[in-house]
C-alpha cells in the first residue's frame, strides 16, 4: 500500500490518499469538491528518490526531537545549477533539514542524495561536493583567520595557497592574523562564507548567510552567491530576508511546522494563490460615479475606499483599464501606486494557521 499527499489545485487543501502501485484513484477534495485523479507509480523504485539529475534530493525526511516533530516527511529536489530558497517561520525546521542533508543529524526516516550519492552510505564522496555555512558560524577561537582556513584547506585537500586570496576576497585582508575569538559577528559570517566556498564546491548550503551583516555586506553576499551560481554551483539558501530570496532564487521551498507547504517558482506560487496586484489611487475628490465605474469593470475583484484613497484588486491585465475608467469618470489622480504580489504575501498565505 502506498501513500501520497495530494494538494487540491484549486483550493490548496492537502489530503492523503492510499493505493497500490500502478493504481489510479479518484480524488474528491473534501474542502471544495473539486474532482481529480492520481496514478501511483507502477514500480515504487521509480520514485523520485532515484532522481540522479538533482543536485540535492530529500525524500520523506522525518526528524523528531524527543516529542517535537521538527521535520515531517519533507520531500523536495533541488536541480543542478539553481539557487533554491528555503523559507519558513522560526522553528519551522529549516536548520534541521539542512543538518540532515549534511549527515550532521540522523533522521528517523528518509533518504538524502547529493548528486545521486547517499549521504549515509558514501559520506565522504557526498560531502566532498558541498560547501556549508552553518547557522551558528564557529571557528577555533585560539587560531587566526588564516590558520583556521589553512586547517580546513588541509582537511578539504585543497591548496593552502587559496586561503590568503579568499580572505582578501571576503573583505578580511586586515584581519588575516587576528585571532578569530576577537572577530565581530559580521566578520565571522564573512569568514564562514570564505570557508564554504573554499575549493569551489559544486553545491553550497547556506543557512541564513546574511545574518549579522551590514547592508553593504548583505548586497556583497548576494553578489557572491549569484557569482557562485554563474560558475556552475547549485545553492540551497535559507533566509528570513524575503527581498533577498525574491531577487536571487530560481525556486523556493516553504516549510511550516516541519511540513513542506510549497515548492515552486515564486511567480507560480503567486498565481496558485490567486494573488492579484493592488492599485492604490489618491484622488482629489472621491465620487460615487468613479466607484461605480471601477466596480463594473471586468477582472476587478475588490474595491475599497478610505477618504479619497481608492484601492483596487484586479488581474494584471486590467490595471490600465482601471486607471482609464477613473479618469473617464472625472477623477483627478493625485498619486498612484501599484503593488505587485510579493513573496511576502506568498509567505504569509502559506504559513498562516
Amino acid at each position: 500500500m502506498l501513500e501520497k499527499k495530494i494538494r487540491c489545485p484549486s483550493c490548496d487543501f492537502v489530503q492523503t490518499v492510499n493505493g497500490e502501485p500502478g493504481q489510479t484513484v479518484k480524488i474528491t477534495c473534501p474542502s471544495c469538491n473539486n474532482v481529480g485523479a492520481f496514478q501511483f507509480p507502477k514500480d515504487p523504485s521509480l520514485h523520485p528518490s532515484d532522481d540522479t539529475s538533482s543536485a540535492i534530493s530529500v525524500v520523506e525526511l522525518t526528524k523528531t526531537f524527543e516529542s517535537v516533530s521538527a521535520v515531517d516527511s519533507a520531500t523536495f529536489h533541488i536541480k543542478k545549477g539553481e539557487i533554491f530558497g528555503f523559507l519558513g517561520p522560526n522553528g519551522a525546521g529549516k536548520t534541521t533539514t539542512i543538518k540532515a542533508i549534511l549527515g550532521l543529524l540522523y533522521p528517523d526516516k528518509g533518504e538524502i542524495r547529493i548528486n545521486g550519492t547517499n549521504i549515509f552510505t558514501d559520506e565522504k564522496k557526498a560531502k566532498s561536493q558541498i560547501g556549508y555555512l552553518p547557522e551558528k558560524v564557529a571557528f577555533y577561537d585560539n587560531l587566526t583567520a588564516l590558520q583556521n582556513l589553512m586547517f580546513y584547506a588541509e582537511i578539504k585537500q585543497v591548496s593552502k595557497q587559496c586561503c590568503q586570496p579568499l580572505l582578501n576576497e571576503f573583505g578580511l585582508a586586515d584581519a588575516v592574523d587576528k585571532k578569530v575569538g576577537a572577530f565581530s559577528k559580521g566578520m565571522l559570517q564573512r569568514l564562514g562564507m570564505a570557508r564554504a566556498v573554499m575549493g569551489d564546491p559544486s553545491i553550497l548550503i547556506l543557512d541564513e548567510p546574511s545574518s549579522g551583516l551590514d547592508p553593504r555586506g548583505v548586497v556583497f553576499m548576494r553578489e557572491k552567491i549569484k557569482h557562485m551560481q554563474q560558475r556552475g554551483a547549485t545553492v540551497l539558501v535559507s533566509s528570513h530576508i524575503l527581498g533577498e530570496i525574491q531577487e536571487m532564487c530560481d525556486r523556493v521551498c516553504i516549510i511550516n511546522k516541519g511540513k513542506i507547504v510549497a515548492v515552486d517558482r515564486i511567480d507560480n506560487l503567486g498565481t496558485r494563490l490567486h494573488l492579484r496586484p493592488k492599485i492604490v489611487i489618491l484622488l482629489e475628490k472621491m465620487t460615487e460615479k468613479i466607484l461605480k465605474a471601477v466596480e463594473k469593470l471586468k477582472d476587478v475583484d475588490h474595491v475599497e475606499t478610505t477618504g479619497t484613497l481608492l484601492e483596487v484588486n484586479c488581474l494584471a491585465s486590467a490595471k490600465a483599464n482601471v486607471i482609464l475608467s477613473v479618469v473617464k469618470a472625472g477623477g483627478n489622480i493625485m498619486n498612484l501606486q501599484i503593488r505587485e504580489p510579493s513573496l511576502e504575501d506568498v509567505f504569509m498565505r502559506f504559513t498562516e494557521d
Partner: protein
Amino acid sequence: MNISFLHHPIVLIAKKEIMDNIRNKWILLMTGIFAALTLLISYFGSLGQGWQDLGLTIAGMMALVQYLIPIIGLMLGYAAIVGEIERGSMSALLSFPLKRIEVLIGKFLGLGGVLSFSLLVGFGIAGIVISANVSEVDIGQYLIFLLASVLLGLVFVALSLLASSFFHNRSTAMGLAIFLWFFFTMIWGIIMLGVAMLSMDVETAFTSGFPDWYYAINIINPISAYGTLVSLNVGPVSSSFTEQAFSNPAFYSSELMATILFLWIAISLIIAYIFFKKRDI
C-alpha cells in the same frame, strides 16, 4: 612517509590537537611537572642522602603518578568532542569530507601523543640526570616504567573521550571525568575491601593469601593493572608496595597487565564511537 599519509584526516586532526597543546603550553607544563617531580622524589626521597637509583625513585613515585597520570589524561580530553559540539565548530568540521571515526581516532592519537610525549620526555630527562648521579643504572626497568605510564595515560585519554562523546555539555562531561578518577583511585579500593570483608575471613586472607578470583577482579582497574605491571618488573617497587605486601598470584604477568590496559583503550574508544556516531550535532 608518503604524502597521502600526512594528509589523511586522522593525521590532520591529531596534528591540530598537538599544535593546540603546544600553543597553549600545556605540553611544556606537563613535561616540566613530570621531570621536576621525578627529580625531587629521587633527591629528597632518601631524606638527605642524595640521589636514589632509578628503581628506588620509581618506587617513591608510584603512589603519586597513579593519581596524577589519570587526572591529567582525563582533563586533556574531556572537552575534546563535547566542547567542539557546544561551540559549533563540530558541525563545520563534519561538513568536510571526513568521518566521525576519523575525528575520534585523530583526537585520541593527538591527545595521547601529547601526554605520551610529556611522560617520555619529562621522565626521560629526569632519568638521564639521575643516571648521571648514581653508580648503578638499570635502564630496562626504567623503560618499562615509562612505557607502562604511557599506557596508563592512553587509557585515561580514551576514557575522557568516552565522557566527551557521551554528554551534551562540557560541565557534565567534566563531572563524569572527575567521577571516573574518584572511582578508579578511591572508590575501587573501598569496594575491593568491602568485597573481601563480605566474602572471606580477611585476617587469614592477609596471612595466607587471597583467592585467585579476588586478584583477578582487582586488576580490572587499569590503575591496579598499571601498578602490578610496574611492580612485576621493578624490584624495589614490589618490596615497598604497601598494598601488595602479600605476593602476587602466579597468573599475574606483564603480558596480562599490558593486555588489560590495551583492552581498556580499545573498549573505551569503541564505546565512545558508538555514542559519537549516533549523536545529533
